[in-house]
């Protein structure tokens, strides 16, 4: 069944002439989705929301390209791909997600083009980041942004950077590798992004021990479920009584499935997609996969709702939340056990 509504929406986004129009579309569309929050199936809703984000971001990128041309900077000297990391890369953005972005562009054959490319993409990425900020996408606090030269490079430069990270698996490098593992081209030459990913997975195969470091890097976020299977809400401060869904459930599960997927060489970036592929690769039994899918879908829903106060959640949702968290904890300890088996404890 064709999704008339989203086709319609994409047409309207495509027809936008400026950022003002784009912003009003974002606001109106998110409002519609927000109303369906409690009634819709959460993976479907997250999917639609992320198609919306992709559409808005792509359009903003194209508007920036046009704007630069109008100001006399010409067209992009070489092909490029605009990358999303983090929840954007995983197609799991919420209504209020930050920008986590990067840029990869083709290597030039001559020095002149190389210099022009560098100048062009510096201006270009700054324009895009500013536009997105205007559209209501806050800046990433960790400065993972295309406007930051560390995340805006030619394909070769990217490859060198990855090699450096793989060669020196310090805490920071491993964090960057984990960020890169979720990279996805939202618009532009997707072939460039694919080549980058190809290099990532080749290097990963050459450095099998990096998986152990990746696990250690993510262990500090534990699934927030107590000894008795109880919820562990915040005890103090203005968020007292709420459950930290992001760091107590969502992030640990994302980390676990990312690691399982990366280990199997699965290149999907979305968590649900990773679970699907893991099942196909028989790294998860069908029961495990089903449990994981349900748990993660529920966590996605909770994350969209925002502040979760168990006392106001009602019995049914509380039970589901506890079940999901327990499933999350199970996958975390399964992963830890397997890694310990492979690499030994430390």
């Amino acid at each position: 069944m064709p999704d008339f509504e989203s086709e319609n929406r994409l047409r309207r986004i495509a027809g936008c002439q400026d950022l003002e129009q784009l912003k009003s579309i974002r606001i109106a569309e998110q409002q519609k989705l927000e109303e369906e929050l409690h009634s819709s199936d959460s993976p479907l809703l997250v999917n639609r929301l992320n198609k919306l984000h992709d559409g808005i971001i792509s359009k903003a990128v194209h508007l920036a390209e046009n704007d630069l041309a109008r100001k006399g900077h010409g067209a992009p000297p070489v092909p490029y791909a605009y990358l999303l990391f983090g929840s954007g890369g995983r197609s799991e953005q919420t209504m209020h997600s930050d920008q986590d972005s990067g840029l990869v562009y083709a290597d030039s054959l001559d020095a002149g083009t190389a210099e022009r490319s560098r100048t062009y993409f510096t201006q270009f990425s700054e324009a895009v980041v500013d536009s997105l900020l205007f559209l209501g996408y806050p800046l990433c606090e960790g400065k993972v942004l295309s406007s930051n030269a560390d995340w805006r490079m030619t394909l070769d430069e990217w490859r060198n950077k990855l090699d450096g990270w793989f060669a020196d698996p310090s805490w920071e490098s491993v964090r960057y590798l984990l960020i890169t593992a979720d990279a996805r081209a939202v618009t532009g030459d997707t072939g460039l992004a694919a080549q980058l990913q190809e290099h990532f997975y080749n290097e990963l195969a050459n450095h099998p021990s990096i998986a152990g470091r990746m696990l250690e890097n993510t262990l500090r976020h534990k699934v927030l479920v107590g000894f008795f299977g109880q919820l562990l809400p915040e005890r103090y401060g203005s968020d007292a009584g709420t459950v930290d869904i992001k760091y107590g459930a969502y992030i640990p599960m994302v980390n676990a499935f990312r690691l399982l997927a990366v280990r199997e060489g699965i290149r999907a970036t979305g968590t649900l997609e990773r679970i699907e592929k893991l099942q196909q690769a028989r790294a998860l039994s069908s029961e495990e996969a089903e449990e994981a899918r349900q748990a993660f879908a529920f966590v996605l829903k909770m994350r969209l709702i925002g502040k979760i106060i168990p006392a106001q959640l009602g019995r049914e949702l509380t039970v589901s939340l506890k079940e999901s968290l327990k499933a999350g904890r199970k996958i975390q300890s399964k992963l830890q056990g397997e890694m310990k088996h492979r690499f030994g404890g430390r």
Partner: protein
Amino acid sequence: MIKKTLIAVGALLILFPTMAFAEDPSAAQLNMGLNALWIMMAGVLVLLMQGGFILLETGSTRMKNAGHVAGKTIFTVGLCSLVYWAVGYGFTFGGDAGEVLNKFIGIGSFLFEPGLAAGEGENYPSSIFFVFQLAFAAVSLSIAWGGFAERAKLSVYLIFTVVFSAVIYPVIAHWIWGGGWLAADGAQDFAGSTVVHLTGAMAALAATILLKPRIGKFNKDGSVNEILGHNQVYTALGVLLLWVGWFGFNAGSWLAVGDGFFGFVAFNTQLGAAGGAVAAMLIAWMLTGKADITSMLNGALAGLVAITASCAYVDPWAAVVIGLIAGVLVFFSAKFFEKMKIDDPIYALSVHGAAGVWGTLANGFFATEELVTKVGIGQPGLFYGGGAQQLWVQFESVVVCGAFAFAAAFGVLWIVKRMFGLRVTEEQEIIGLDLSEHGSYGYPEQMKKTGMSA
């Protein structure tokens, strides 16, 4: 060198022959001397517990109040000593009251003048007994300060020290230890779970209710903020000092060396403390997902507080159980007071109050026949064939002493609040009591860095 020494000794022997050929001390005198040494040492250990309170209270509060919190402990111990010497000791142990009045308060021995040495037939010199008892009164007072922390005016500390050391503590100590009406009922409180700890905690409760919570502890929407202490190492060291001092507190309370029974008391004390620390760490980890240090430290103290009443009355296994239960209890108690919107910065209400009540009641369950006979107070507990009688007496002493201590402290502080006010101004509280009450910070460099806004 050796030659010179021998000549000197020889000369001295000729000059003072009695030094070498003094009459041998009698067995009673030896006994008295040993007791005196032990009680003196125990008294010093209990006085050293003030060091524990200084570190515990300072570590659990903020930098801007550190000098005040630490310094006021020394000042109030000094003031307490004078007041207790002048009247407090007399109200506790004075023997001049008539039979009816003596049920409620002792009279005599005011401006106490101890003899130069132990009298004929006395087990220890009364001077040493006084030092020992005074150290207990000072501990009870320092427990009460938990309820005043970080917001009471210095003058309030002064007034309350006088009233507490003169009347509130002596009256309760008299009831249970000074031959008062609860002693006559056979209330068992070996080293003062009720007399020292519950009394102090009740005064803290009255104070914290009247003072109201510290600025920033509770939000308008009812949620709670965590006001973390500035030095967890101080807090832990404070607990260790208290723990060590507690050997004087409990084992010293046997007031004799004799057959070595004080060793058994010390043994039980260690087991109770250990049980409290372990149980509190486990319960905090199981229920909150975090192995919380503060909870564990409170657990160790709660174990000590609880075993204080029962250390001479129970078997070692029961000491472990009493400690374990105290460790769990203190965790829930702290949550309870927080829920009731009662600000208890040093956890005095939970550590000394809740655990003090539990420790006193525990005698009613676990006191054994053999040990009750040895100590010579009350009946065996419920689990040792004594029926519910001792439990009832314990319950009665907790309720009556708790109620008296609370009512008296509340009354005094209420009057002070009406007449002078208890609390520093909002501005003073924000810049810190170090500056407002004493004129300089305990950590001058650090506080300047924060622009006095901390």
